[in-house]
């Protein structure tokens, strides 16, 4: 995609900042999603592996995959969606590519992701 016009970039930058923890493709996250049912509103948690992150101003999104009752479920969330209440990062995963579409072909043990050990940076 071509770079947006400077005015567009400026307007996009005005979207309210979201305070999400840093996560990468391969990490397991818990996404708290606001769901409106008629009059009521409740928060549902969608937990799974991040298989894709897309950048681009306020248009960025990420896709989370989980296997629910042996059915693969993927949900894509825009970073700036007001429906996304909170993101919690679970285990970090070590992966060698940016888009984990190969997980769709795999089940069970083959679909595991190696853990990524995060060292504390503050070691003076």
């Amino acid at each position: 995609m071509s770079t947006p016009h400077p005015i567009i970039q400026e307007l996009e930058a005005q979207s309210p900042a979201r305070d999400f923890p840093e996560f990468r493709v391969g990490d397991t996250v818990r996404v708290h999603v606001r769901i409106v049912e008629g009059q009521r509103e409740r928060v549902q948690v969608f937990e799974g592996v991040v298989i894709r992150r897309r950048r681009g101003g306020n248009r960025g999104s990420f896709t989370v995959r989980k296997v629910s009752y042996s059915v693969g479920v993927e949900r894509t969330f825009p970073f700036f969606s007001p429906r996304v209440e909170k993101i919690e990062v679970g285990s970090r995963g070590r992966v060698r590519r940016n888009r984990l579409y190969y997980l769709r072909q795999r089940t069970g043990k083959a679909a595991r992701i190696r853990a990524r050990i995060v060292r504390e940076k503050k070691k003076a």
Partner: protein
Amino acid sequence: MLHRMGLLGKKVGMMQDFDEKGDWFTYTVITVGPCVVLDIKTKERDGYTALKLGFDDQKPHRVNRPDMGVFAKADTTPKRYVREIRLSAEECVQFEVGQTLTPDQVFRPGDTIDVTGTSKGKGFQGVMKRYHFRGTRATHGSHEYFRHGGSIGCRLTPGRVYKGRKMPGQMGNKRVTMQNIAISKVLADKNLVLVNGGIPGSAEGYVMLHHAAKRLVPAFKLIQPKQATETAEPAAE
């Protein structure tokens, strides 16, 4: 003649955002104005009444001498995009030559407008792309006849092809008006107008914004943003 106030602008591009419910919506960003009133056409002199507006600076050496005279009268720099807005004589009174108009003087959020621009050129196209004809069958022995339009008429009666027959030809790069577009925001400090959905043409293309022809609109009055709010508040008390 239909009188609808309008302004000239330039398409910047499109954006997305979320509404209160969290659904995506798409809108187009347009730089509108500042437009300079270059001339006011009068019944006596010109036979009709209108505002002549100019938008976006042009290099002086690209403007011919008669046009230079117009810009000199309005005491402004040469303009690239010059169009007339037909208004009634009563509406024209509130303007003066040389005056600069900004979008917040003409448009409010929620207004319904028509946007006129030049659509993206698609070149010489066949009937399938141009008019969504279905073409002909690809199998059962079809030979060198797949994307044609088929028959274009009858035989001796009427002995000619009816006018308006849809055939291949130039597609796009044509004046197009999108009617009844809602304004979602007017950003006065940046001279930007955000409208819902798309508008004709590519980014950087010139467009004309009018109050909607198909809506009943009272005679146009300039909006004076700051003074209007000041006078409105004491009146309410």
